[in-house]
């Protein structure tokens, strides 16, 4: 095993120090990109996109709701895969990424739920319905919360990472099952509007700002993940020389 993965790049990738320094260079550009995309998308979606024929202006919630939903799901996979890498190759950086990804994913799931619930009131007349996608989103929130709670319950950082990696992997296997089963159980939610195989059933004027927002959310997710991971790196490597030197050079 150790021989198989002793390539230089893998070690470098796994080095928290390398990550800290490289991400430091990328971060300003990425955050500028994220801010720009989000601002453009927000203005476009809130003020310039045409209003929906049936739903009126409440439809503008989509520009938050859908990107947040996408990233909530994608974030779970990011977390689980990072966990798997940490578990299998004992890469510390991956553990840190997993730990940082959990709260971000949970928050985005929360955003998807809240915006969806708020959107439900004018559209369906109720804040909550037990539909497949909504329910599985709620389950996703529970899965996130479980991982976070597990992280904070262990006293040893190593054990915490491994335990939450195991849980997030089991959860990852379960997400499709849960989704399928809830879907089978009841469906009331809107059919998928964006399919990668067909043209979107949305008007392009509405769809383009959505695309901008989705891109913006992806960038935002990356920024948040990097920021959190950087703190985690500093925190866990606080006793190493490079962090000590970094602090010494910064504070004097």
């Amino acid at each position: 095993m150790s021989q198989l993965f002793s390539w230089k790049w893998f070690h470098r990738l796994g080095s928290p120090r390398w990550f800290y320094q490289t991400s430091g260079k990328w971060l300003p550009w990425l955050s500028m990109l994220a801010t720009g995309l989000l601002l453009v998308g927000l203005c476009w979606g809130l003020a310039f996109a045409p209003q929906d024929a049936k739903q009126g202006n409440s439809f503008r919630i989509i520009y938050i709701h859908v990107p947040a939903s996408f990233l909530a799901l994608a974030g779970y996979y990011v977390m689980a895969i990072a966990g798997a890498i940490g578990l299998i190759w004992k890469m510390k950086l991956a553990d840190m990424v997993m730990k940082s990804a959990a709260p971000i994913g949970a928050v985005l799931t929360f955003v998807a739920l809240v915006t969806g619930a708020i959107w439900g009131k004018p559209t369906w007349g109720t804040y909550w319905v037990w539909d497949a996608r909504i329910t599985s989103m709620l389950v996703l929130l529970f899965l996130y919360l479980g991982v976070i709670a597990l992280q904070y319950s262990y006293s040893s950082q190593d054990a915490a990472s491994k335990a939450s990696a195991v849980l997030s992997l089991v959860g990852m296997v379960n997400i499709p099952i849960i989704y399928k089963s809830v879907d089978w159980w009841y469906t009331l939610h809107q059919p998928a509007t964006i399919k990668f195989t067909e043209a979107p059933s949305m008007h392009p004027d509405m769809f383009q700002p959505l695309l901008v927002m989705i891109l913006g959310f992806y960038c935002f997710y990356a920024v948040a993940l990097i920021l959190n991971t950087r703190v985690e790196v500093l925190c866990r490597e606080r006793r190493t020389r490079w962090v000590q030197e970094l602090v010494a050079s910064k504070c004097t």
Partner: protein
Amino acid sequence: MLTTEPNTDLFSPNSLDLRALAFERDDRMLFSNVGVSLKSGDILQVEGPNGCGKTTLLRIITTALSPSAGQLLWQGQNISQVRQTFLHNLLFLGHLPGLKQALSPEENLIWWRRLNQSQAECCNNEVLARIGLRGYEDVPCFNLSAGQQRRAALARLLVTKASLWVLDEPFTAIDKQGVSELESLLTEHSARGGIIILSTHQDLGIPGIERLSLRHESLGQKALDQNSPFVVDVA
């Protein structure tokens, strides 16, 4: 009680090497550069002040924890390669007795023997009598005193085929007679070619015992803040 006709089966020659073991817990170096070579017949007493890492070291030897650095060799081979054979030859008794409170000493012993693939039913009563539990064979363990529970756990030493014993403070709660009987049991095992590693704060009356001292360099704040490792010397 423990003085019985000595079992004369000899173990085939064994060797266990700790090579430059180090252990770091939450970024604090607990000990480093621990190296000892043990062969058949050796008894090693791990000593040191409270919190110096004796229990940690023993758990590393049982492979329950992995060291941060260094190697463990069994018969000259890295332990990860021969883990199964190594575990077959290992008996570990930790701080916790590993007894089911609801079961009697006899049932606990039977179960343990079954797990270790020895004939489980043979002469358990004799074994328990030798360890000082005559009359308590079928009392549930939660009705035993501290020392009796410890004895019920120690009964395993009498029925094991393992050649390497790792014992963490085995004398806890044992009365004086029990201590001397346990000592002769250890001597006997070493005479048969077994290896024993034990941690204890008491001085033992066993001749020819080796000692490994894990010493705290400074008990104060320093040890926490800086990575000052514990100093190790083998007497």
